[in-house]
């Protein structure tokens, strides 16, 4: 313990800590990146294979109840 705090050694210890922190962040970011892109690719593939799947929106139908030319009745 006391060896690590000696002036000459301390700087290497500090460097090692900084490096370890950076490597941790880097690995985390790398894996996050890989997962995010994989998910995105998956979603895009699903969408191109089956576009209806994404939006099974309720249908809407338009019907003409009265012929276009008829005179509108009162009320």
């Amino acid at each position: 313990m006391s060896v690590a705090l000696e002036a000459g050694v301390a700087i290497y210890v500090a460097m090692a800590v900084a490096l370890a922190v950076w490597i941790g962040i880097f690995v985390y970011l790398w894996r996050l990146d890989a997962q995010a892109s994989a998910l995105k690719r998956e979603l895009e593939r699903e969408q191109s294979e089956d576009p209806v799947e994404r939006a099974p929106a309720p249908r809407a139908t338009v019907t003409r109840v009265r012929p276009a030319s008829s005179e509108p009745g009162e009320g």
Partner: protein
Amino acid sequence: MSGQPALCNPTSRTPPGRVCEHHPGFQFLCYNRQVETRLTVEGVAATYGARRVFADVSLELSGGEVLVVSGANGSGKSTFLRLLAGLQRPEAGQIVYRCGGQALDPRDAARLIGWVAPDLMLYRELTGRENLRFFAEVRRLHLDDGAIEALLERVGLAGRGDERLATYSSGMAQRLRYAYALLHHPPVLLLDEPGLTLDERGTAVVERVIAEQRRSGIVVVATNDPRELRYGDLLLRLGT
């Protein structure tokens, strides 16, 4: 006002042949129903948050036609009318108003619309007359007292115009909404639950308004009331 909508009808104010091209005053002509207004809805979809309410609605309406929109609660009737009014942006597709064959910028189109809905609230601290006067002023309409009185009478609020909205009953508030919507003689009238909280005489007002509007303008009614379904020339069923 003739029963037949006049398409590109030159008037004394506008030299013949200029109406169909870019005519600076043609919005004014639209107001006056001298030029036919058409509404085209193409593949429109709406979302609420991330949820799709409806998708792929396409239709076309021209002056003199009434569209009735029906569907269960939450099927997007009000949302559809808000889209038509330009209060909300469609998630996909487009809504185009044409005036004399010329597509209008959505922001200009908003001024051709009269909208009546339960969501529509007017200023409670002001009287009915002050409300109408205010909206006439922001629309740059020069209405005198007689005109506003006539409008109040038309929706059955004659003599009640100087009371504050806070004291109005819900039926009276609904009548004032009609006055608000009809103020600028819009060629397009959007009615969400038109008969809401109205008594028999109020319903008669609605019927008269729709009958007058269909002589040349467009009416869209969102309702589930079977008595109101019969107004329609076209029927749009959402969520079926």
